[in-house]
């Protein structure tokens, strides 16, 4: 006895040290909520690009702002006031609302370097015939209303390079101006487009940017109560999802703790029992978070949400101890002998199931696996080795044998339900088989914690703005800026022919604003020297209503352009093109990348095969359909997770076979679990809910939790009745689990909801199927 007492003290001390260590690790843990948990650990080049773009690509840094309510002049005034203030704020790389802030500098950059920038500058263009044709076009333009644009610059730019550059620059559809600021098509909303300096994955920085915008709006002189500010964009999404997940996880933890505590109080009628019973839960939760933090360097918000639900599972062990052993220390020693092996086996089956998740290439899933294993092992260990020593000598809980007896009789009669249960199961199988193609949702969007309303706002603002969704990209990689610019020029040439064939509506390229030095020199060399150009021009004006003398300024400019220093990135500073080049030309360590976003023709997707054919054979060039790529990524995970879950199931069966050495017995244990899984799957399918990866985790949990019940019901000798106390403990255990997970079912974060709707009914079904299919003992027992 003294010996066991010393052991108990050792256990308590070790436990306290363990808790302290966990708390220490957790205090230094970084928590995330972004999509990173759903990105692969070892990506392909396309996936790497997808991840980079999601993290800090051009699109990830955009915030779209709408101003609604009030009247159009007020909205435009607000837009201008906000823009003026934010343009001075270093948080933003650019703030656009349609005001021509850079117009003069843009114009000067384009006009002064038109012979280096214009793709039309070729030797043919400056031949006699080429000049004649270009002049003819310019004179035609004079006849049009637009002609007034070219009238004043015709003597300097008779070939119309400036008009061409302006057309190219304005090729993207832009929102219309109302009162001098961008507005939606229906005119009910002022629009702004901001680009943050920080990357979209820097959620804190994005939150700061949102706060700055909101503050600028609140403090704008024109602000009225009627006007409202709305924001959207990838950064905004990560901020709001972080808030949502944080809020939900907090609320769910408090609610489920309260619910489970109430339930336990009703059963135990003792506060000390309640407090002691929660110790394994707390230990498990701390161990889970600490393990994930150590294993992954960070903890995802979803893992925490999952953790709250696991409270309901971890509390089971103390319920078994308290209820099954009931009243005195001798009985508890007896419990350790009689029931602990069963519980230990239950924990082992859970570990076997979750261990498979550790192998997942999807860090989010692996985190859940690690959390579950660490949490359950810690909770069970604390229940077994620490809790008994902590119980006071006079520890008692309310006598629940009455409930146990009622349950006992109910279980006796459960066999009556075998046939109905078999029919339900058969129907469930039929439903699952019939709907096997639509069971799974393989769209990555199904994982998004962003609410439907936010997605709709985003779609609306994007449509208003004509903002690129950056779904299709061509990427050129190389060792330096010059080489990727050269490659983008080659790609641009091929893309341009696709535009002319109607395969593409348009595309962007950094080389449009900053051509490679080689290209600039080629263009310079296309210009003849001054005497030669003068001679050709004299011939070219023949038959046109202009005199060659008019174009002396052109001869001057062309001569100057021949020896002009080639454009460098620095020359773009302070123009609106600088932002485009920054976004499209990326240096990463030793690697340079040029991005060429493509615009699909209205209402059509881009034909990826045609595009790849057109780009065929170009080294270092990659075409990426971001949406297809991310969906493919996710469905890959889904298949992997299904495989791993089946592996987990196999591991559980293997474990049971090793322990029991009886296939028949293992079959009896597995059958109710499989039945519960199939029934839940059929139910989800009937309700039209397509399963995502988290449903699968839920099903795995059903097996893990349910295995405890099945093991309790499993007896080698059918004549030994199940103790009423055991039955009562199972009922309470399943109720707490249902309470923990049931709450998740009401979450509006789809991934948490998925686990809730799977586990809560699954656990009840597992208990019922276990009771129904258990081998029957002879009679209703009279007493323990």
């Amino acid at each position, binding site marked *: 006895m003294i010996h066991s007492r010393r052991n108990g003290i050792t256990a308590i001390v070790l436990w306290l040290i363990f808790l302290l260590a966990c708390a220490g690790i957790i205090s230094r843990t970084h928590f995330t909520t972004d999509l990173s948990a759903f990105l692969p650990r070892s990506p392909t080049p396309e996936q790497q690009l997808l991840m980079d773009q999601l993290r800090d690509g051009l699109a990830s840094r955009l915030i779209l702002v709408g101003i609604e309510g009030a009247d159009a002049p007020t909205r435009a005034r607000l837009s201008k006031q906000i823009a003026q203030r934010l343009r001075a704020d270093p948080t933003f790389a650019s703030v656009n609302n349609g005001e021509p802030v850079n117009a003069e500098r843009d114009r000067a950059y384009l006009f002064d370097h038109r012979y280096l920038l214009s793709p039309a500058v070729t030797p043919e263009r400056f031949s006699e015939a080429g000049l004649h044709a270009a002049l003819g076009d310019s004179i035609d333009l004079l*006849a049009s209303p637009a002609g007034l644009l070219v009238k004043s610059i015709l003597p300097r730019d008779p070939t119309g390079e400036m008009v061409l550059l302006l057309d190219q620059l304005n090729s993207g559809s832009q929102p219309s101006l109302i009162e001098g600021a961008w507005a939606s098509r229906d005119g009910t909303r002022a629009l702004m487009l901001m680009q943050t300096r920080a990357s979209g994955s820097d959620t804190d920085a994005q939150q700061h940017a949102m706060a700055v915008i909101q503050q600028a709006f609140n403090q704008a002189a024109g602000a009225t109560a009627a006007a409202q500010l709305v924001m959207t964009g990838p950064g905004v999404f990560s901020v709001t999802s972080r808030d949502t997940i944080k809020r939900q996880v907090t609320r769910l933890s408090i609610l489920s703790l309260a619910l489970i505590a109430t339930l336990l109080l009703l059963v135990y009628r003792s506060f000390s029992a309640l407090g002691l019973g929660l110790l394994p839960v707390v230990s498990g939760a701390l161990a889970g978070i600490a393990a994930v933090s150590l294993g992954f360097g960070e903890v995802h918000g979803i893992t925490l949400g999952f953790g709250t639900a696991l409270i309901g599972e971890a509390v089971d062990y103390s319920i078994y101890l308290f209820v099954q052993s009931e009243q005195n220390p001798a009985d508890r020693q007896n419990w350790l002998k009689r029931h602990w092996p069963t519980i230990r086996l239950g924990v082992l089956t859970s570990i076997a199931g979750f261990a498979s998740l550790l192998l997942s290439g999807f860090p989010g899933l692996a985190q859940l696996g690690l959390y579950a294993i660490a949490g359950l092992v810690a909770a069970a260990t604390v229940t077994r080795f620490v809790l008994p020593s902590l119980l006071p000598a006079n520890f008692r809980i309310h006598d629940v044998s009455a409930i146990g007896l009622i349950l006992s009789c109910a279980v006796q009669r459960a066999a009556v339900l075998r046939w109905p249960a078999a029919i339900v199961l058969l129907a469930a199988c039929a439903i699952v088989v019939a709907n096997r193609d639509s069971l799974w949702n393989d769209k990555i969007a199904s994982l998004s914690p962003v609410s439907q309303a936010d997605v709709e706002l985003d779609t609306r603002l994007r449509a208003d703005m004509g903002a690129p969704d950056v779904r299709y990209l061509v990427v050129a990689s190389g060792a330096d800026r010059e080489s990727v610019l050269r490659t983008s020029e080659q790609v641009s040439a091929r893309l341009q022919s696709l535009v002319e064939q109607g395969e593409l509506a348009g595309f962007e390229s950094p080389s449009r604003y900053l051509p490679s030095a080689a290209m600039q020199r080629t263009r310079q060399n296309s210009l003849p020297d001054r005497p030669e150009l003068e001679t050709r021009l004299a011939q070219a004006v023949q038959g046109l209503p202009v005199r060659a003398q008019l174009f002396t300024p052109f001869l001057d400019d062309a001569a100057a352009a021949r020896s002009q220093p080639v454009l460098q990135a620095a020359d773009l500073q302070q123009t609106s093109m600088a932002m485009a080049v920054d976004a499209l030309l990326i240096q990463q360590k030793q690697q340079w990348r040029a991005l060429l976003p493509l615009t699909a023709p209205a209402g059509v997707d881009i034909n990826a095969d045609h595009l790849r054919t057109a780009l065929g054979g170009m080294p270092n060039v990659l075409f990426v359909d971001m949406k297809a790529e991310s969906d493919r990524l996710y469905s890959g995970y889904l298949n992997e997770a299904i495989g791993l879950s089946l592996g987990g199931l196999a591991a559980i069966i293997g474990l049971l076979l090793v322990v029991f050495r009886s296939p028949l017995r293992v079959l009896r244990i597995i059958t109710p679990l499989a039945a519960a899984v199939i029934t839940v799957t059929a139910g989800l399918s009937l309700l039209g809910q397509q399963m995502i990866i988290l449903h699968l985790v839920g099903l795995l949990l059903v097996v893990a939790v349910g295995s405890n019940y099945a093991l309790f019901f499993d007896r080698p000798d059918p004549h030994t009745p199940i103790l009423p106390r055991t039955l009562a403990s199972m009922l309470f255990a399943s109720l707490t689990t249902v309470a923990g997970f049931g709450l998740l079912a009401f979450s509006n974060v789809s991934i948490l909801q998925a686990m809730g709707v799977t586990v809560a009914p699954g656990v009840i079904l597992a208990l019922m199927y276990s009771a129904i299919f258990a081998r029957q003992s002879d009679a209703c027992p009279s007493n323990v």
Partner: protein
Amino acid sequence: MTRSAYFRLAALALLTLFLSPTVQAAPLSIAQLMTNLAKAPQGAAAFTEKKFISILEQPVESSGELLFIAPARLEKRTLKPRPETMVLDGDTLTLERGRRKHVLQLKDYPEVAGMIESIRATLAGDRKALERVYHLALDGDTERWALLLTPLDAKVGKVIARIQMSGSRDVVRSVEILQADGDSSLMTIEKRAP
């Protein structure tokens, strides 16, 4: 030249849009001319426009179709030398040339708005609106009249020196615009059979 100046001037060219059906006789006052013009609900016509630009040896010519639908829609469809469309509907001005399309709001360009509203006011017979921007002078009789518009507004005056519309009865036959820089244009209008 900035983009807004381009649109301002492009819109200016809209000044040359015109038509008016139905006919009445007798001596003419501005009030009567306005009344006559106001009766025209809509009409289509062919136009020829000559622009006299100082840097060119010869005037450049364009031609196409005009359409006015009362009270607020004007369309100018140029067919030669290049297809081009300009549509003013309400406060929205749309320009299309080749694959390029620009949409802008008149009220963002007050100088242009002043001029175009004046033209529309003429077509609608809205003398009040017209006199907010221009000084009006009418010469001739019902069969052969000439309406001279001189800008009152300084912003408009920077671009336009004067506009002279001439016509017969309630039909506008020509619109001559003299720009402040000395260039000018003359648009002649042939009403088509309805």
